[in-house]
């Protein structure tokens, strides 16, 4: 299939992915239930400010707004495609996908998008309602900045998608990729803005964290929508996201071509 034809099949495949997500909506409910983690972090920080007054310029409402935005952002940027890649490559399920005229990457991407649409349809109204009732959820930015934050969320999802895919390509050679990716993800967990807003880190650690790819899919969009970044910082954040995306895309495509040659050799 030519690259130009890909955008035309997306709507149809997306409808199918939406249908499959709706069919398994029970799992989405469970998934929402399990995402208590940001609320745990929020609770800890609220206990801290109760004792310390403010922490690094953050007061209670700041933390509530930060973690609510973080929970929403995470739902849209997370890309659990490494499982699928790994299973397809190990079990030979990839062979079936290779018969189809569309690159397997798009199948994975669309499946994720379908889930995100469904979760978004539930989550966004819920958060909007919560923000209307709870006065401490506040985002002091105009529609322009909010739109920039939305773009950052999409970019973060893109980066996660190519990053997970790049790692998954190692499955052509090893069965331990899952552990490796978990390790990588574990480092990222700390440096993405989950444990604490990056502003509250020691300065040296923060300077490293803003250059790594992890902040792009969590802290960066949240910092935009909570009005903590100026124009220059936003541009720098997008530059970091773009650079890592390009890098991982390149690695992924190179490993994909090499892995595929090896995979065919195994199958023959």
């Amino acid at each position, binding site marked *: 299939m030519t690259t130009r034809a890909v955008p035309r099949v997306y709507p149809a495949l997306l409808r199918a992915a939406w249908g499959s997500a709706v069919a398994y909506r029970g*799992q989405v409910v469970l998934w929402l*239930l399990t995402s208590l983690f940001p609320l745990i972090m929020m609770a800890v920080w609220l*206990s801290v400010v109760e004792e310390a007054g403010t922490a690094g310029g953050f007061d209670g409402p700041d933390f509530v707004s930060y973690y609510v935005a973080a929970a929403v952002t995470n739902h849209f940027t997370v890309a659990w495609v490494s499982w699928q890649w790994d299973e397809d490559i190990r079990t030979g399920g990839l062979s079936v996908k290779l018969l189809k005229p569309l690159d397997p990457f798009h199948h994975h991407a669309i499946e994720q998008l379908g889930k995100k649409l469904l979760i978004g349809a539930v989550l966004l109204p819920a958060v909007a309602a919560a923000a209307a009732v709870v006065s401490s959820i506040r985002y002091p930015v105009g529609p322009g900045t909010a739109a920039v934050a939305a773009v950052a969320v999409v970019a973060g999802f893109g980066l996660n998608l190519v990053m997970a895919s790049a790692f998954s390509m190692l499955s052509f050679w090893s069965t*331990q990729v899952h552990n490796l990716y978990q390790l990588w993800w574990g480092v990222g967990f700390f440096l993405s803005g989950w*444990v604490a807003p990056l502003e509250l880190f*020691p300065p040296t650690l923060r300077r490293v964290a803003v250059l790594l790819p992890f902040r792009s899919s969590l802290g960066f969009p949240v910092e935009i929508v909570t009005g903590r970044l100026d124009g220059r910082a936003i541009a720098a954040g997008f530059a970091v996201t773009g650079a890592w995306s390009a890098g991982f895309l390149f690695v992924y495509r190179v490993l994909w071509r090499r892995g595929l040659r090896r995979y065919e050799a195994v199958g023959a």
Partner: protein
Amino acid sequence: MTGSQAPGLRAGTYLRLLGIFYRNSLLNEMEYRLKFWANVGLSLFWLVWAALSVRVYFRFTGTIAGWAYHEVLVVMGLFFTVNGIHQALIAPNLARMTEYVQKGTLDYLLTKPVDSQFLVSLRHIGVHNWADPLLGLGLVGYGLARGGTAPDAGAVGLFAVLLAAATVLLYGVSLLLQTLTIWSVSSRGMDDVIEGLLETGRFPVSFYGGAVQGLLTAVVPVAFMTTFPAEALLGRAGWPVAVLAVTVSATIFLAASVFWRFALRSYTGAGS
């Protein structure tokens, strides 16, 4: 279909069966030695990482809800311990429930002359997660050493009782939730819910304050799993807590057993 009764089998037989099951699991897993060491490495990494991230909170305050840094480390160590027990002993069995029901393996298990709850609960063991509880206890020890207080024999005894109660309690809650599979057929995601709830045990329950603290003590008894055992070691808990913990876990265990038998009565089998 019933068949959960197993008359005539004594405790000795069950112990011998356990020996066979575990040797089997061990032999199976020894084929993947690299996986074992990779898991140990990964667990150690998570442990150090978690302990370091707690430091970020204490950059701004000396105590959080009355807990100092080293005391939070004790709770965190217990979280790894209990989580490890869950992954090594409980999850490998109960996570198979979906497969049992969907593939009809449960029909086959019910025909065995052994108690069915015993079979679905203790048949498998996650050998490559064995290190997690030990690493967790290591962090508990480090937290205690950092605080410079050694618990006396009474505190250790109290702790042992509370940890045993916590294990039974976690098993009971897991069995209660997984038994629902008999009706819902798929419990995929149920595991994640249990893990997600357990995740709140990373920190002392008083961190959550108010309603959530009450919820985590009375409804989802996470407080019994990490906070209370930690308080025992730190000399903050007395025997009344242990009595309460034993009562609660025994009640939940019995309730889960009764519920399992009740569910089997409405189970129609995969074939019919």
